[in-house]
């Protein structure tokens, strides 16, 4: 019950933000994320931005996944 997508805030007017998701533009409400700013990457669910994505943590997760690659036990 959590179908949500990440997107970047390109513009914000009051409680409405313009988001870009993989090249697609969409307007969402930021009523639940009033501190959201232009340039933030946010999680979008049911027409609302619901959480800000922590880019530093995202980098860490990606770096970890990439590092673990080398410990794969067999070639696919």
């Amino acid at each position: 019950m959590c179908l949500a997508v990440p997107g970047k805030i390109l513009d914000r007017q009051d409680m409405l933000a313009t988001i870009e998701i993989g090249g697609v533009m969409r307007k969402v409400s930021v009523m639940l994320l009033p501190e959201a700013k232009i340039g933030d990457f946010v999680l979008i669910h049911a027409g609302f931005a619901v959480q800000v994505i922590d880019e530093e943590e995202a980098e860490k997760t990606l770096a970890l996944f990439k590092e673990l690659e080398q410990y794969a036990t067999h070639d696919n």
Partner: protein
Amino acid sequence: MLPMTTEEIRKTADFFTSEIARLAKGRHIRLMEVCGTHTVAIFKAGIRQLLPENVELVSGPGCPVCVTPNEYLDTAIAYSRKSDVIIATFGDMLKVPGSSSSLAKEKAQGADIRIVYSSLEALEIAEKNLDKKVIFLAVGFETTSPTAAAAILMAAERRCTNFYVISAHKLVPSALRALLSAEDSHVDGFLLPGHVSAIIGLKPYEFLIEEYNTPAVVAGFEPLDILQSVYMLMQQIQGNTARLENQYSRMVPQEGNVAACKILLEVYQESDAVWRGIGSIPNSGLVIREKYQVFDALLNIPIIVEVTQEAKGCQCGKVLRGVLLPQDCPLFGKTCRPEHPIGSCMVSVEGTCAAWYKYGAGRWQV
């Protein structure tokens, strides 16, 4: 969504699956996920196939549509038959069978039922159709309920008098508590719903450790997130510890979304709620507070609803609690299939049985 090539993903996946097999050697492990989106993600990625046989991934009551009681559907259907009512609903609810009909069937008979992607769209419909009463079917766990609350707040601000809500919202932590206190429960660890946690944070899950000593990991939704979470649970189990860990740290801060929780609690309060197939669970649902009762459909629009009937032979309760596998239900794949579902687990795309059926259980290797 994390930028990696297929080659890189497969290698990392391979690392996780080998480690999981190594840590699970000589044990039989039962892990439960409680989020319909996880159920589907696990199937879509073919994860069960890659896990060793002695590590079981069971689905819990993670589909809010599936745990919505028959009575709710019957009520929505009854409202839809009124000529001055427009029903606004998420697509997920359209085909769910009530006691004798479904919203899709009513739509085919001419009822004004509209699919929306957001609670605010429902409010817009109300503002554009002042001669009608627009009723929004507010279903969902904590990822979605704040969005419904926000719509109610906006309706109040805009003094909208024809917007109503029927709440079927449910709360995940209470469901987990009910699961663990049931006699037949046997779960070695939980994969916790990543997006619900993005809203409620980590605190509401602390009781899993403190009272039930059960390992739990807040998990993301990409295949590698899920594999890493299973790996983290296996490490805990092997080390005989029980901790609350956060694999999805890029989306889930410790405190969750404080603003969203505030809006939620401004509009809604906790109540006991009926979970289809399970029964009543204390403090597991949300009802509209007195201050916003003008938006409560049931209190403002009189309606007569047919007597609720549950389907015979339906084993959904056991499936939802993870005690029975879908393919072990006698109705599964025979009388109960996605195109003619009998019980709640088969109705929604994310329902345990629907997902298991769609991705091959009982028809092919899973």
